[in-house]
């Protein structure tokens, strides 16, 4: 059937089963918006392109499907950059479609021209500049295929305006054939056998699993394998939910803000089974102290992840679910009671904890209450910093795709639009963005998107008036000099202020009034006794809600391992 290029793109989205697109129109992408407007595909207009790409990312993380976002050329495209990089670092499948100036104007510094292919090259899995309308069906098919297969990631399709109005024949291909792209799926059987030999002879085995387990939909297999063999499990931030947080074998998250039990296990194990994790510096700390006595088995879909940071004894490249299924077949309960009991004792003796206070709201208490009052069933998104770590520590994630957080890039401003994406995917589930007062202001304008689309997203702002993690580092490593981390700072403040104690100017903005200005509900909570009621009200409200918790201003995240130290050098606080 003959049709314009922009309509082909829309038809391709239909063929891919896309139910929602997040985007923002502009000059060169208008033909696309004109066609999608006439279709059943839901289009969510955000208030900034970065909101669109994070929402597509949140949708993808919550559902496991490909998220789609659209922006115009030039500034529209460059506004996607942070979101594309966020998705790339965390291996999230998204297809980003950008308008581009007409082909014969490319390179002429035309109005709203940016070389987005060049700009995004290091942060995409792949990208296409469409030069011929006839290529659109193949390119769209390939874009979705590449985004979702292998190690998933963002794919960008740059669509010049003349190509989107030119007409051509549309026939959506059934297969893709890309000679340079053939991800390995099934693991080498011999390597799997060797890995199982190591498992059988291990005295102190540990499973260290990451986001790859969630991507591979392998949580069930991981859980079955760990339980059958009785091997303790630690997860990375990205892995939270891949193994039940309430399971006795779960040691907690490892790394810079890992639990004592998890970090101790990582240092003392004699066999580390790494699954869908990439030995990130925030997880490993100083490499010489990370699993120094251990043989390492590494299961990963991406060969480039293997032996990148840590030399691996048995690499198994392939799909984590397939490989774990193979391993499960020959798994037997291991006689490692003393190791397990030792770790259980460490876990029992060193729980995640904080000093309770009946006068001031503790941020950890807020997260605990959200966990309790949602029965652990909520989808949690986070911003970045202290809020992210408290959300990781005090909510126990029993299921995958319930903790959505920018782990690799650490993007402040991610959580709220991601929550919008998750809520669009699951209108009936409770969604909380656990935010700091700094992060939330990076994408606060998406309140309009949430309110107008009647999305009952709850934003729990842990307001300490600081960029809390920056302030924590300044307290610990910069001699308590709170340089530019206080969000209330004015010219009238003392230059050397290192305490919020006396006479601080009023906080800006007033989040309650701000919520109301957007037509959302705003609730400020100043006393610990009111925390529970406010959370209940938010959960039951059909509106978008900002809960502003005025929390202890100088609360720190513990445990903590200083950057560059070994992960057994833990500061307990």
């Amino acid at each position, binding site marked *: 059937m003959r049709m314009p290029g922009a309509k082909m793109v829309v038809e391709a989205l239909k063929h891919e089963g896309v139910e929602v697109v997040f985007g923002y129109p502009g000059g060169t992408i208008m033909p696309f918006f004109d066609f999608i407007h006439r279709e059943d595909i839901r289009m969510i207009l955000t208030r900034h392109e970065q909101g669109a790409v994070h929402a597509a990312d949140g949708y993808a993380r919550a559902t496991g499907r490909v998220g789609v976002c659209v922006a115009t050329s030039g500034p529209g495209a460059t506004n996607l950059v942070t979101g594309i990089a966020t998705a790339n670092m965390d291996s999230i499948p998204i297809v980003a479609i950008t308008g581009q100036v007409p082909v014969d104007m490319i390179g002429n510094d035309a109005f709203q021209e940016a070389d987005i*292919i*060049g700009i995004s*090259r*290091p942060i995409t*899995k*792949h990208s296409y*500049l469409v030069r011929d309308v006839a290529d659109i069906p193949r390119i769209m098919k390939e874009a979705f295929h*590449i985004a979702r297969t292998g*190690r998933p990631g963002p794919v960008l399709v740059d669509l010049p305006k003349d190509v989107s109005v030119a007409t051509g024949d549309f026939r959506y291909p059934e297969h893709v054939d*890309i*000679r*340079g*792209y053939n991800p390995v799926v099934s693991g080498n059987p011999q390597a799997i056998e060797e890995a199982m030999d190591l498992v059988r002879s291990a005295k102190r085995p540990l499973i260290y699993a990451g986001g790859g387990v969630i991507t591979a939909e392998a949580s069930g297999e991981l859980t079955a394998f760990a339980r059958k063999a009785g091997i303790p499990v630690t997860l990375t931030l990205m892995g939270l939910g891949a193994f039940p947080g309430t399971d006795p074998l779960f040691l907690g998250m490892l790394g810079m803000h890992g639990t004592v039990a998890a970090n101790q296990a990582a240092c003392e194990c004699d066999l580390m089974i790494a699954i869908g994790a990439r030995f990130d510096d925030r997880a490993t700390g100083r490499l010489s102290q990370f699993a120094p006595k251990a043989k390492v088995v590494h299961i990963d879909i*991406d*060969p*480039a992840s*293997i*032996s*990148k940071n840590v030399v691996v004894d048995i690499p198994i490249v392939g799909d984590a679910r397939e490989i774990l299924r193979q391993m499960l077949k020959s798994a037997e309960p291991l006689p490692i009671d003393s190791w397990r009991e030792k770790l259980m004792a460490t876990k029992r003796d060193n729980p995640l904890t904080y000093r309770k206070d009946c006068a001031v709201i503790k941020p950890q208490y807020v997260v605990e209450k959200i966990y309790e009052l949602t029965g652990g069933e909520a989808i949690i998104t986070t911003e970045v910093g202290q809020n992210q770590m408290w959300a990781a520590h005090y909510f126990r994630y029993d299921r995958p795709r319930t903790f959505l957080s920018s782990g690799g890039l650490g993007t402040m401003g991610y959580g709220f639009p991601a929550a919008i994406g998750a809520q669009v995917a699951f209108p009936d589930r409770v969604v909380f963005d656990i935010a700091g007062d700094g992060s939330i202001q990076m994408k606060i304008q998406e309140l309009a998107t949430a309110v107008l689309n009647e999305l009952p997203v709850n934003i729990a702002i842990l307001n300490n008036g600081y960029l809390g993690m920056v302030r924590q580092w300044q307290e610990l490593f910069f001699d308590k000099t709170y340089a530019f981390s206080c969000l209330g700072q004015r010219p009238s403040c003392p230059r050397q202020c290192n305490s919020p104690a006396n006479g601080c100017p009023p906080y800006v903005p007033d989040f309650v009034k701000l919520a109301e200005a957007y037509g959302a509900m705003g609730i400020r909570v100043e006393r610990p006794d009111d925390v529970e009621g406010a959370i209940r009200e938010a959960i039951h409200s059909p509106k978008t809600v900002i809960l502003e918790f005025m929390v202890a201003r100088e609360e720190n995240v513990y445990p903590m391992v200083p950057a560059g130290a070994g992960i057994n050098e833990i500061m307990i606080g």
Partner: protein
Amino acid sequence: MDYILSVLVENHPGVLAQISGLISGRGFNIRSIAAGETEDPTITRITMVVAGDDRVIDQVKKQLGRLVDVIKITDLTEIPSVDRELALVKVSSAVSRRAEAFQIVDVFRAKVVDISHQSLTIEVTGITEKVDALIEMLKPFGIREIVRTGKISIARGNSLAGEGGGGQVYED
């Protein structure tokens, strides 16, 4: 040490930028890079010389392998191969010293391809060490400009660089 990688890529615009961006973005150290069409016009062959150790090269190969437009990577470092580089060297040459320059050119089986009152341009083809040696010998004349292609390599015997594997070794 130096490693020689022969990389087959889709002959698309931007692929070279993609590869050089990956190399620089990940902090790898490239000595030379040469690209040209192959017997199949849809495929470009990039020959690059990368400095590093085994672990670095392992990462270079794996990261290149992640690129969708990269079809095949062959490490020619350990495979018997014919390596060549071409250089054009422009040297100052007073008329009085020309004969001397021509002698050196002869010894290296190089060619004088351009001549003027003040300069000679010499073309040399060979392995990198030979090109380096000629340049060294020409230094006393005053080198004004050097243009080098970077190394290109092909596996010896029946095997193809795109397939890997060794071949018979012939004398250079």
